[in-house]
């Protein structure tokens, strides 16, 4: 099925001919996002440069009954910006302007196509801090972050993208443009429509502008690395830290498989006989940081750590942090296909969940490294496989069925930060129950009766 010349010329008239791509080579380049082993060719790709153009494109798409898949940099991990069959890709990367930095109200207004890094840099230049730091932040767009409610390493202490969205400009399926929110710290006027769109994965509207809340930059930061012979000890350490009313800004862990891969890749001297490695960072006022560091070091020692190292300066901090920051890279080099999954449980169940994942991996003879955000229970089981091995891919699927069943059983969620997209669509009813799914469907139908916005994603 390809676009009629009439539909095509309509699009070209709206955004300009150079901003519409239809060649085979271009379409191949937009047939994927960051999700492993998923591919679908779009019909065309358009690059709007203003909210007005987005509205016109959507109105035109309604007329032409053309499904529209919104995309930023295409780094999502659940297939959210993967084209649907016969779809038009609406790519917002050229709408990347930083519009307004308000140092009195501590807000930043940007176009949706600005990268998270650009947002962080603009904030930093004014001495302010935008905390959410998804792993892809160097290239992910803020619009994509909002559509997926992206998390990051600092989630436990600082929250996620949702906590920083004060306002949104959204274009609805029929071309209506809404401005939702404002710079007020408190606002209870009417339903909070803005919250509907955060995490809506491109199904309720197209976000073209974001008003973000910034906070003051923490003055100091301290980094430490601790290794534990058993996962349970690491988990207990985390519980004890929080019970001591310390909320670190980073509380990351690596499991044994991941540690082994990191050591193979970096040769930095990680012990291979430990079951868990914790990277802990605390930030804030220097006195508080110093106190929390001392107390956390003691807690680690009290819970059986093999070794705990506190960085003495920035250089050492970077070196210690590198174990965690190269984890994904180390895992990705092992085999041709790397599937980065996302499962979250209440923090108290984390050790049990890790053990279950490891046992399931063994049962299905898969190589799986688990790492993630121990402080908030968000795990990233990472499968090292080969998509061309269909037999193994089948076992991967079965393994994850069991893993997500267990996640649900433990009171967790099938996705902590990667989103539903296509990857979690099948299991969502089991996770949420049919009634919730029904109401989510109502919502989609309300905002998009013609069903042109990212059809087939999340819930249908």
């Amino acid at each position, binding site marked *: 099925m390809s676009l009629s010349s009439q539909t095509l010329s309509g699009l070209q008239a709206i955004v300009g001919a150079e901003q519409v791509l239809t060649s085979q080579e271009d379409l*191949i380049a937009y047939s994927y996002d960051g999700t492993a082993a998923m591919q679908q060719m779009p019909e065309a790709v358009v690059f709007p440069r203003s909210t007005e153009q987005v509205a016109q494109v959507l109105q035109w798409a309604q007329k032409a009954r053309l499904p529209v898949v919104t995309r930023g940099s295409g780094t999502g991990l659940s297939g959210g910006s993967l084209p649907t069959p016969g779809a038009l890709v609406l790519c917002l990367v050229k709408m990347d302007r930083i519009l307004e930095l308000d140092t009195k109200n501590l807000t930043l207004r940007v176009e949706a196509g600005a990268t998270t890094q650009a947002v962080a840099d603009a904030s930093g230049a004014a001495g302010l801090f935008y905390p959410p730091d998804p792993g892809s932040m160097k290239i992910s767009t803020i619009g994509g972050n909002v559509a997926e409610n992206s998390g990051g390493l600092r989630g436990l202490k600082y929250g996620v993208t949702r906590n920083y969205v004060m306002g949104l400009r959204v274009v609805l399926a029929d071309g209506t443009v809404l401005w939702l929110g404002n710079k007020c710290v408190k606002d209870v006027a009417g339903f909070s429509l803005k919250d509907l769109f955060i995490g809506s994965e491109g199904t309720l509207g197209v976000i073209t502008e974001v008003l973000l809340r910034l906070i003051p930059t923490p003055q100091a930061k301290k980094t430490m690395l601790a290794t534990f012979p058993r996962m349970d000890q690491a988990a207990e350490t985390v519980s004890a830290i929080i019970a001591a009313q310390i909320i670190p800004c980073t509380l990351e862990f690596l499991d044994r498989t991941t540690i082994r891969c990191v050591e193979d890749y970096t040769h930095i001297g990680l012990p291979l006989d430990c079951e868990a490695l914790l990277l802990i960072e605390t930030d804030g006022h220097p006195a508080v940081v110093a106190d929390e560091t001392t107390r956390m070091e003691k807690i680690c020692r009290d819970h059986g750590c093999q070794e705990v190292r506190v960085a003495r300066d920035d250089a050492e901090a970077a070196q210690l942090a590198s174990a965690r920051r190269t984890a994904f890279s180390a895992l990705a080099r092992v085999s041709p296909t*790397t599937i980065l999954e996302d499962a979250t449980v209440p923090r108290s169940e984390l050790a049990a969940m890790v053990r279950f994942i490891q046992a399931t991996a063994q049962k299905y003879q898969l190589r799986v490294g688990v790492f993630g955000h121990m402080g908030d229970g968000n795990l990233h089981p990472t499968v090292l496989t080969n998509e061309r*091995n269909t037999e193994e891919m089948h076992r991967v699927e079965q393994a994850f069925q069991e893993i997500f069943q267990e996640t649900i059983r433990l009171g967790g969620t099938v996705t902590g930060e990667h989103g539903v997209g296509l990857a979690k669509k099948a299991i969502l009813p089991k996770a949420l129950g049919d009634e919730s799914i029904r109401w989510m469907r109502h919502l989609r139908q309300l905002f998009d009766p013609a069903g042109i916005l990212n059809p087939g994603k999340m819930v249908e």
Partner: protein
Amino acid sequence: MCNVKSCQSGAGKSWLLGLDYSVVQQCMHCGLCLPTCPTYSVTRMERHSPRGRVALARAIADGRLELTRAFAEEMYYCLGCLACMSACPAGVNYAEIFEHARAAVETERVLQTPMRRFIRWITIHWLFMDLRRLLFLGALLRLYQRSGFQSLVRRSGLLRLLPARMRELESMTPDIPARFSAAMIPPVSPARGRKRYRVAFLTGCAQDLIFSEINRDTVEVLTRNGCEVICPPRQSCCGSLHAHNGEWTLAQGLARRQIDQFPPSEFDAIISNAGGCGSHMKHYAQLLSQDPQYAERARQWDAKVKDIHEWLMEIGLAAVPQHEAPAMKVTYHESCHLAHGQRVVRQPRQVLQAIPNLTLIELPESNWCCGSAGIYNITQPEMANQLLDRKMNHIRSTSATVVANGNSGCLLQLIHGARKHQMPVRVAHPVTLLAEAYRRGDRSRTHSSGEI
């Protein structure tokens, strides 16, 4: 256990001349290469990014795309700067995909035109296959320049008769030095003081033609650091120009020639002072992997090839004696192939910091391509100029009076940039700055010891 239904049609085209499928499969689409890619940064189009190019290569391997003109043009639009390889978490060997793609494009003659064929024949197949021809051409150009004829032509306005593109190329013509390397460097230079190592020094092609003084400085620095330097007068091109432009057979021939002229077992190191050449020469084993007569020696060769900065720091740089030195504010532009291809990042900075009274200011986007990229600044002037302007603006922002860099192509590009932007900044190789510092150190010692 693979049963993917693919790669049925035209093995040669689909497989991009024997590129292993696992190389293209390694890409997991994470997109972390995008922010480091100059062409993506400028165009924001996925096709002009490493992730996009790998996807196209994979599509060809799968039989979902033919070896089209658009693909061919895309692979020549890519700078080949390899910044993506430094950023890639999964270790995708983009350099291999790039070289295979260009080689396939040439074998299938996708971009063939009589003019292009002629230019490639003159340069890749003729001039750079025997450097005597290149140097002869250089001598003619030198005559043209030094006889006053060039300035006459430039002042006369005759150049206005040329198309704009030719005028720009003319303005980029480098000044040919008075003497080439062979006239300045003896075949054997003994070490000064205790001889610690025996090394071969490769004079290069463009380096020899335009920057022969840098070659002389390199040999001097080596001898001052305990190295006996073997530098025969007639050398060959390393073949990177050929390998990066799809001419593998020629590249392989040149690699064999190099290995024959400098048997790796006879040297402690084989020194290059050009980032681009050094990077290519560290991969001769891959180039000659199918040649049983050379495979083993090529492996030894790869292990011996060292960039000058890398070597100096490895053997321990002889300290520059403290002396009265003019204060210099220097910024360092990284040659892509030195930084990303060879991963030599700290050492050139360490060499610069060893020079007294030299303040090293970090250049923003220091490892971002300057647009030279081999012959890219000739074949893709628009993108090359955008990148050059971006680089010159960053250099200006540092207020440095000197920009240091370790690759001939970049040096030429920066000199052109300084002229174009009328910036009074000196462009120099770190090894030249080091040699000058050593000489000043000598003079101040002689001076002080000569005082009564």
